[in-house]
């Protein structure tokens, strides 16, 4: 419990910075949406297109004049930022002790190492949860002025829930890297590059049918806005895969940290 409190207190500053910059971004987005919101001339323009073309340009999935379509589009970037936040936090919560040379102090306290990691995990998870909840509330409130259409609340709640899964995946991977890698400096870089690679995968997936299998590999595709919009539900396969990834990485993390030779 002490560890959780200590970690939460230590993360207040960085949490405020993250929340502040995300607020700024969201406010800009949501105020820009007024240019599109229920813009009849734009709808008319779309309506004049032949149906095949509508389909070709994907306006059916993402109609930018509706709140659902707009949020679905821009939220992709929010997901990217939240994932970066999650993997960096997960990794640094473990690695910072060695970086700041406080690890010897922490580990001679009369608590098991597994409890230390657990406390840190809980603290980071709370951090991510708070950030997501805050953004959820912010977008909901800012969206009110545009009179959200039916289904928006459900769509966005599902999206937020899916993103939460994604955050937990990246937190666990970050913690695992922090525990497994011998050098704390390297673990951060590996986590960051992994994230970039997964992000690129999620984009090139549509290039070729042969790349279809990537959808199981890159978590960015598990709960993508387009997928949620289409099914109006989270896909159970991906939920199971996510839980498996989280469980496996945390297990590896806990086991290796127990035997870790500290890098001082």
């Amino acid at each position, binding site marked *: 419990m002490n560890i959780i409190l200590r970690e939460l207190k230590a993360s207040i500053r*960085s949490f405020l910075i993250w929340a502040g*910059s995300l607020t700024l*971004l969201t406010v*800009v*987005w949501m105020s*820009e*949406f007024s*240019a*599109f919101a229920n813009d009849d001339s734009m709808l008319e323009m779309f309506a004049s297109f032949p149906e095949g073309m509508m*389909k*070709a*340009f*994907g*306006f059916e*999935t*993402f109609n*930018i004049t509706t709140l659902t379509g707009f949020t679905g*589009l*821009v939220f992709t*970037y929010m997901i*990217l*930022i939240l994932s*970066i936040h999650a993997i*960096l936090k997960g990794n*640094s919560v473990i690695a*910072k002790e060695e*970086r*700041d040379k406080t690890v010897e102090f922490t580990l001679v306290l009369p608590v098991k190492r597994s409890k230390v990691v657990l406390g840190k995990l809980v603290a980071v998870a709370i951090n991510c949860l708070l950030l997501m909840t805050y953004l959820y509330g912010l977008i909901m409130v800012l969206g009110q002025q545009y009179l959200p259409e039916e289904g928006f609340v459900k769509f966005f709640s599902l999206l937020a829930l899916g993103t939460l899964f994604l955050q937990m995946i990246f937190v666990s991977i970050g913690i695992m890297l922090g525990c497994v890698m011998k050098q704390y400096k390297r673990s*951060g*870089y590996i986590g*960051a*590059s992994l994230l*970039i690679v997964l992000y*690129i995968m999620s*984009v*090139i997936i*549509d*290039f*070729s049918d042969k790349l279809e299998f990537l959808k199981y590999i890159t978590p960015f595709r598990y709960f993508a806005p387009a997928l949620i919009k289409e099914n109006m539900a989270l896909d159970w396969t991906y939920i199971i895969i996510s839980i498996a990834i989280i469980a496996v990485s945390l297990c590896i993390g806990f086991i290796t940290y127990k035997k870790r030779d500290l890098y001082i």
Partner: protein
Amino acid sequence: MNIYSREIKDKLKSAMIWSVSLFLLVLLFMSLYPSFATDESIFEMVLENYPEVMLKAMGMTGVNMATVIGFFTFCMLFAQICFAVQASIYGFSILSEEERDMTADFLLTKPIRRSKVFFSKLAAALTALVITNAAFWGSTYLCLSLFNGGHKYDPKVFAQMLSVLILFQLFFLGVGMVISMSVKKIKSVLSYSMGLAFGMYIVSASGSIIGEERLSYITPFKYFEPNSFITEGGYDTAMIIICAAVIVVSISAAFFLYNRRNIRTAS
């Protein structure tokens, strides 16, 4: 010279890793091209998968993805993200790492001026960036020759697109340096670098979706948007001037701040 060689030894390995990863990135993208270019229907399929707003966000409007240059534009965007991350990491770390590793007092009590320390470090980082840049030119050339799918392309446009990369890198290096000098202590270089690089990317991408012109003045991803080289046939001089101004101002400010910086030592 000693500082330079000490620094470059440190940076060389990282520059190599970045060069190899960028090579793999170009290879991955361009190896997809031949199958893509032969079949027009695949091109249509891609359009179907990407809504136009997404194409806008990826800077792909007005670009025919079936051409070599059009396809490369797509790859270029991701390469830019990598270059941005690398340059920001260097920018944030070169001046601040000594303080974090408690080696600053050792270095600064040597009989050399701070300005010399500054310029040696800057030169080393620049060398590493130039190496990566050159490697990227090489990878592009190689992959284009290997995977052009028999289509013709104009090397001049590619050269134009790549020639501004150095400004792009310097922007992130300079901004990273000045931020690292304006804060008390940088605990984690990586968070700052990822924040700067991806923040700029997201501002650019979401700015394109919502069609906000004003946002384009703050992010280098907009200064050198790859598709503008195709649609407008060159770079925007105004943007180049803004970028150069930011670079000059930020590096001079970092120099000024570093010269008078109060170094926090181990106590």
